[in-house]
């Protein structure tokens, strides 16, 4: 992968793959925050990323300068708001290489995007005896909607198993996906294992039996170049809040011809073309799937987030994440009594490390780290079946993003040593 130059890239002693974090950190006001007397070390990026000033400012600008409802106004504010709002949609379309912005639907988050497909596409296309194939490492948001769809329709959910090395068992996948498979739904990057799944390959297998392919991009779109046409997926879901954008907005990309045939799911203003007391006709894509006043400010801010990431270059972002992931994996080897989950090969994974300790519960580890200003996540990570499959109820996770440094990982490792020591001594 070649990395485009950007004013944020630079050569580094560690081999030239890290971003210029000093420069990037200056863009993120929160990184100056003190927590328990220490400068915040934020390693909970897989839960939600921090936001650059530019993105925050785009929200302020909207509210202070051109706040108005979109699409329906002839007045200047409404025209301006509509322009910037729709430009944000085009930016997102370009970011994932969607053929048209008509394929880009704003949702609240990844979860809603997947529910939209489960209801609007699923209820019309999945029948009794059909099956939906997903993976054993999925996030609840990519499991429960399918379980419920299956229940409504008398269909079945199948789980592609996860091997010891944290990778999908593709041989089994080929057996699970059969003529009765209507949809394959898989996460691109795991929020627990860090694994990067071969979703392009799954798409080929799915298409070979006439099934569609949905990619849960919640963890991949923020971190690596994702090209829906290259992946060959039919649907892609992701959330802005994990990629420098605001909370409250996500994206469903859907193949235009598929979505043309889908019925709307939510009804109301903006998604109609005509309403009488007897019935209604629908608006065109993408509006058909967007009922009521949209999340205008956050759509605009998502456009700003995409601008920011484009400026860094997603190839560079990915190189940075992989480098930090590899570095963390290496450093974890020093830690006794800690067990790292997921692939051992850093080349197969992204910038996060989940782990657990022989005796200290993740929650207590997290509490101890918080005393040192280090924020990690602990718990089931919305992947209960996977985590329990490891014989534990909870794990700790450190996840990295564009502003994290090797020095912060050093602090994490030292902190874990101290925490383990603290609990061992008492």
């Amino acid at each position, binding site marked *: 992968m070649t990395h485009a130059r950007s004013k944020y890239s630079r050569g580094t002693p560690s081999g030239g793959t890290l971003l210029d974090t000093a420069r990037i950190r200056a863009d993120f006001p929160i990184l100056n925050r003190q927590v328990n007397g220490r400068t915040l070390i934020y390693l909970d990026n897989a839960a939600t990323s921090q936001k650059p000033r530019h993105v925050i400012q785009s929200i302020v600008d909207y509210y202070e300068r051109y706040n108005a409802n979109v699409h329906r106004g002839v007045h200047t504010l409404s025209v301006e708001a509509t322009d910037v709002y729709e430009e944000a949609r085009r930016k997102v379309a370009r970011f994932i290489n969607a053929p048209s912005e008509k394929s880009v639907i704003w949702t609240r988050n990844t979860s809603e995007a997947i529910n939209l497909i489960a209801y609007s596409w699923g209820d019309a296309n999945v029948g009794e005896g059909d099956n939906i194939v997903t993976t054993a490492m999925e996030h609840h948001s990519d499991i429960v909607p399918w379980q419920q769809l299956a229940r409504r329709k008398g269909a079945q959910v199948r789980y592609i198993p996860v091997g010891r090395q944290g990778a999908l068992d593709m041989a089994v996948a080929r057996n699970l996906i059969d003529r009765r498979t209507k949809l394959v739904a898989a996460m691109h990057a795991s929020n627990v294992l860090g694994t990067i799944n071969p979703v392009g390959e799954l798409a080929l297998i799915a298409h070979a039996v006439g099934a569609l392919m949905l990619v849960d991009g919640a963890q991949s779109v923020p971190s690596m170049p994702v090209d829906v046409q290259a992946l060959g997926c039919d649907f892609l879901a992701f959330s802005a809040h994990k990629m420098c954008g605001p909370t409250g907005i996500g994206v469903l990309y859907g193949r235009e011809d598929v979505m043309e045939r889908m019925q709307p799911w939510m009804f109301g203003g903006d998604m109609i073309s005509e309403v009488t007391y007897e019935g209604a006709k629908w608006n065109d894509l993408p509006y058909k799937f967007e009922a009521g006043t949209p999340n205008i400010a956050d759509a605009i801010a998502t456009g700003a987030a995409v601008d920011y990431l484009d400026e860094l270059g997603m190839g560079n972002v990915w190189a940075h994440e992989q480098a930090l992931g590899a570095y963390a994996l290496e450093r974890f080897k020093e830690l006794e009594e800690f067990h790292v989950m997921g692939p051992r090969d850093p080349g197969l994974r992204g910038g996060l490390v989940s782990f657990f300790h022989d005796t200290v519960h993740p929650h207590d580890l997290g*509490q101890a780290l918080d005393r040192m200003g280090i924020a990690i996540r602990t718990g089931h990570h919305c992947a209960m079946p996977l985590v329990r499959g490891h014989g534990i109820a909870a794990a700790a996770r450190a996840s990295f993003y564009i502003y994290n440094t090797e020095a912060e990982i050093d602090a994490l490792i030292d902190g874990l040593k101290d925490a383990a020591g603290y609990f061992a001594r008492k």
Partner: protein
Amino acid sequence: MQSLEGLDELYEQIVLDHYRNPRHSDLLTSPAVDIEVNNPFCGDEIRLQLKTGDDGRVSAVSVAGRGCAISQSSGSLLTELVHGKDAAGLHGTVTLVRRLMKGDPVSEAEMDALGDLSALSGVRKFPVRIKCALLAWSALEEAAEKLEQGAK
């Protein structure tokens, strides 16, 4: 390491001891009530069982579960406070523990009645962990309600 000192208030020696060596954690045979609760956000689990005598008072208890030091030690400490209590007595103890966690004033006599559980009062300074500490107690509350219904 200095920065970890603040943790001592949360993780008292006795708390960690109960976490590592939970009391009364073996399952009961044919309990009068058997209740499972969990914290949906972090996944911590507690299973609480009670047996009662003819007088309606607790004669045996078991608490088992998975979770952090606070949720599990609180469950273990609970087992030391229920013997011989009837439903009303259990409710009273739950209320007292909740007051302790909320930071409401608690008299010395009340504190004494809580025994080792008073070691958990440091949780008040870590509000997000109060839920952990109360998990087992929400199970006990449910259990007390069930006992009352059974008695009717």
